[in-house]
């Protein structure tokens, strides 16, 4: 069980309000990702749920019980930190055992859970080492192991993959997703990386300046972003946003078109442009096209085989049914 409900929760540091009152419900078993640019309050929100920071006003409910004034240890939540936060003076075994020791779990049960966690996380051979003797990926596994053995109501991840190199990050991402499928426990995951958010989440919460911009499944956010900010933040490469006459023709202040929703031709089309940088990824090529009115450069995703080079003139045609329109406030027009 692990439903988490925030009711008018707000947080101020002194005079500065970092999170204005917000409401949010995270359902039991759901993988929720808080995503947003740095300083948007996503980590603070996680720390409020964890109990590491006190909320200024509002109510936090965990499984229907008021947890607002419950200390972190008693909330039944486990947290994985960006810096791993392992105990450097303890072996891997003792690190993983620590929360169980604090909770007074019997020794044989401790041993059973350590063995199970170590097997699941490929740590069996490293149980007697110190964290200092492990690689970054292994340390992160130990941190996850320490969280798993508590059998928490929910897992809280605070940018757990930021300190890993790119290749390792993809692997760990899959492992965490698989772990979620296996355990079916509520997970809240904070990241600034929208790719992590898209690939892992059941539900994404997009935050900006402490305010929830949109909540939805990855594809909902991708297909129907509620405003310009979400449209620009979700999706990689970013959505192209056009202002001015082009937008006015569609009855909007701003129109958005994703790089993958533009047809490219060498002979005719709506917009004429010159290819600047062409990024060849093999399967796809991203073209940065100059000369499109109201958007410079415009990013376009084309087939990796398309023979285009720097300086080529091409024509672009947006797929009109995939066009996003926004009004003067940046809100979506349907």
């Amino acid at each position, binding site marked *: 069980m692990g439903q988490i409900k925030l009711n008018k929760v707000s947080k101020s540091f002194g005079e500065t309000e970092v999170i204005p009152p917000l409401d949010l419900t995270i359902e039991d078993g759901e993988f929720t990702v808080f995503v947003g640019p740095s300083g948007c309050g996503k980590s603070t929100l996680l720390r409020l749920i964890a109990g590491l920071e006190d909320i200024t006003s509002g109510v936090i409910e965990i499984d229907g019980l008021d947890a607002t004034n419950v200390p*972190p240890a008693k909330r039944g*939540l486990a*947290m994985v930190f960006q810096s791993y936060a392992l105990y450097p003076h303890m072996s891997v075994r003792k690190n993983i055992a620590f929360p169980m020791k604090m909770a007074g779990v019997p020794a044989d049960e401790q041993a059973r859970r350590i063995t199970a966690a170590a097997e699941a996380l490929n740590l069996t051979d490293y149980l007697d080492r110190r964290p200092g003797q492990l690689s970054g990926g292994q340390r992160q596994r130990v941190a996850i192991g320490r969280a798993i053995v508590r059998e928490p109501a929910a897992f809280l991840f605070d940018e757990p993959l930021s300190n890993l190199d790119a290749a390792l990050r993809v692997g760990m991402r899959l492992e965490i997703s698989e772990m979620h499928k296996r355990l079916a426990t509520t997970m809240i995951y904070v990241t600034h990386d929208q790719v992590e958010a898209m690939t892992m989440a059941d539900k994404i919460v997009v935050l900006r300046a402490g305010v929830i911009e949109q909540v939805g499944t990855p594809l909902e956010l991708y297909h129907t972003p509620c405003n310009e900010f979400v449209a620009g933040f979700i999706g990689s490469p970013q959505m192209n946003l056009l202002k001015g006459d082009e937008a006015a023709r569609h009855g909007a202040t701003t129109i958005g078109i994703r790089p993958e929703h533009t047809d490219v031709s060498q002979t005719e089309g709506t917009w004429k442009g010159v290819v600047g940088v062409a990024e060849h990824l093999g399967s796809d090529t991203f073209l940065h096209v100059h000369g499109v009115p109201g958007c410079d450069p415009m990013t376009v995703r084309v087939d990796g085989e398309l023979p285009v080079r720097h300086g080529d003139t091409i024509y672009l045609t947006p797929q009109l049914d995939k066009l996003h329109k926004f009004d003067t406030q940046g809100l979506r027009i349907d």
Partner: protein
Amino acid sequence: MARTVTQKRKIINTAAAWSVGLLIFFPILWTILTSFKTEAQAIADPPLFLGFDWTLENYAAVMERSNYGRFLWNSIVIAGGSTILGIIIAVPAAWSMAFVPSKRTKDILLWMLSTKMLPAVGVLYPIYLLFIRLGILDTKIGLVIVLMLINLPIIVWMLYTYFKEIPGEILEAARMDGATLKEEVLYVLTPMAIPGIASTLLLNVILAWNEAFWTLNLTAAKAAPLTAFIASYSSPEGLFYAKLSAASTMAIAPILILGWFSQKQLVSGLTFGAVK
């Protein structure tokens, strides 16, 4: 590019380091040598370096005249007691300053340090009178308290710097893992700070052991430590350099031996956190 050190350079550096080291150590060496000379040879001109008649008569004389064991015991109790008491008070103080600082924490730290800038003699009278009133003049407990207070700012400062090096996230992890404040300090903070706590302990034992102003002024016979033992050889019957040196050697020997065996700990503790 790696910095290359030529052989010649290495030799010069080594020689220079040894010269400075010997220069610093020389007074101690001279004291030790003098303690083995006769009184006449001790004041010989030109001074005798090694070519003298080695004798233990000064040590015998000192042992006969003074109760070395009692002074030694007083020193151990005063230095050890004031350090342990100081650590017990300083650990929670440094913990709160390092992990739950307020706007004024830096000011408090500086204010504490500023008390060390006051000449000790400036507060001699008030403390002396307080000691008389409290009936703790010439008692070990009185000296334990006063030396603890004298060194407390340094103990707090040192522990504060060591605690600052410990990432807050690790303590938060402990909190999430269900540790109470006591368990957090006991199982996580203290073991991680052991190098720092150990070097703080050592440094304060040394400072307290060598402290002469308060130990000389606030004791007479009962609680007098080794500093008073040395001082008792410096005046009444004119100067007897050899006996004074023997007494000094006996007073510094324990702390010298302690320092020798713990030098690795001291150095690693004092440079703790400099290299990650």
